[in-house]
């Protein structure tokens, strides 16, 4: 069964990975931009985590606020992507989604900047 699974995912034109790569460029441009920023905040978070594992948690509140800023913006970008995705059933207007996004980010960054210390 395991061999069958690997074959289905990786090999051939109909494998999951190749379908994914070929279909990716077909999704709307806005969503691809959001995906870019999602990757950006993810890798920033990973870098910080590795740093704290190496150096230790001395200014713990600074570490927390830095890490949370990455995680939080990832969540906010992801939720914006969800709301803008045309395939989803719950839809609000694009302007409303974007305005929510701006407001939430404003509050979020305010909190993070104060907690940084």
């Amino acid at each position, binding site marked *: 069964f395991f061999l069958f699974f690997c074959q289905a995912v990786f090999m051939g034109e109909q494998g999951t990975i190749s379908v994914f790569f070929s279909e990716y460029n077909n999704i709307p*441009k806005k969503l691809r931009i959001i995906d870019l920023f999602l990757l*950006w905040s993810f890798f*920033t978070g990973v870098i910080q985590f590795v740093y704290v594992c190496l150096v230790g948690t*001395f200014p713990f509140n600074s570490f927390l606020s830095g890490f949370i800023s990455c995680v939080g913006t990832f969540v906010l970008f992801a939720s914006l992507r969800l709301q803008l995705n045309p395939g989803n059933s719950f839809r609000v207007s694009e302007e409303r989604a974007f305005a929510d996004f*701006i407001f939430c*980010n404003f509050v979020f960054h305010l909190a993070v900047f104060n907690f940084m210390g």
Partner: protein
Amino acid sequence: SVVAGGDDVGDLSAISVGQARNTLVLVESEGVLESHSKFLEMIRGNAAKYGGEVDVRVAWDGGAKEIVLSKWGRWVYDSLVLLAPEAERLGGQSLSAAVADFVEAGHSAVLVGSESMSDETRKAAANCGVQFSDASRVADPFHTAAFDSEVIEASNFLSGAGAKGVLSARATARPVLWRGVGAHVAPSNPLAFSALRGSATAFCPTAKGALSKKKTNLVKFTGTDLSLVSLVQARNNARVAVTGSMAMLSDELFAKEDVSSNKIFAEDVTSWVLGYKSLLRSHGLAHRLTESGETQDVYRIKDGLSVSMRVEEWSAAQQRWLPHKPAASGPIQVELTMLDPHLRTNFKTDKEGTFVADVTAPDVYGVFKFVVDYKSRGYSFIHLEEQVPIRPFRHDEYERFITAAYPYYASILSTMAAFFIFGFAILYTK
């Protein structure tokens, strides 16, 4: 007058201690005036040099009734030398009660016993922590004086760090000739110590001349546990010397200067007891911030603090208080305590004798106190306390821009910049 350290009251009375001391010398009978004339002359000579009057009285019919130690609530005499082992009453009270009151008021006393001493003298010595043995003369077959088989030569002097304050080098150069009743100072007593102990072969013989079989006698009154001259410094810095030998102070043994140091030893011990040397006073335990020099009510954790204190030693020769040099008595320490000492450091001497110590307030907040508790053997006790509250950081006193946190600052700023750029990106793409 009480020699205590620290507050202003102690300051004023400490001045009077160093000045004229009125000494009462109570002798047994007029015969003692002649047999101990050199000792009395030494006391009178010191009093003439260092100020004070000496009043020599003869105790007759076991009484000394007309002597008054305190009149209208003020003490008439500052120190007491009792050369009357058989006296029972003094100044209208029993001798032990009179001596106890006298010492508790901070005055010094010299108690001398003998083989026929009264119970009151024993009790007075026991009140000071020195227990006399039963009335038998101390015998030391290996250290007997050549001219008299009853006199022993004692050379087991107080030694070590505590000796310099009490005995000079000349006093310990030759043995002391001694004849009388031995005593015992409990080793657990922090205030009493022995200036002259018996040698390892000293003992208190029974009536038949043998070593006593009683356990108390073996444990307390044999060998080096036997104390021939005991000294006590009470917590109020009153000094008491107790010895069981009238003969040690007699002219006969003073005269033998070539083989003994009786005269010098007696002079050293009497000077120590009467407050002519090793007398300290301390005042002015002050604290301030090291950088600004400002004294505050409340300090903050991790502040640099400076503690300072003045300690002075009385110089009888110059009749004034000189700055104390701790080389002889050991370094003085200051502690910063809250239930337990958090810091403990030695004082350093400034010029002009001020003691200064620089400490950093610990990382713990609370109500602390600076405590100086100086107990050096032979010198006055110093105990000063000063309460110092220490508060934690205010919200704006924490560290900012910590170097180790730069990556976090960078990530937060970059995330905010990314959000800003994203706004433009998403609004202006089709």
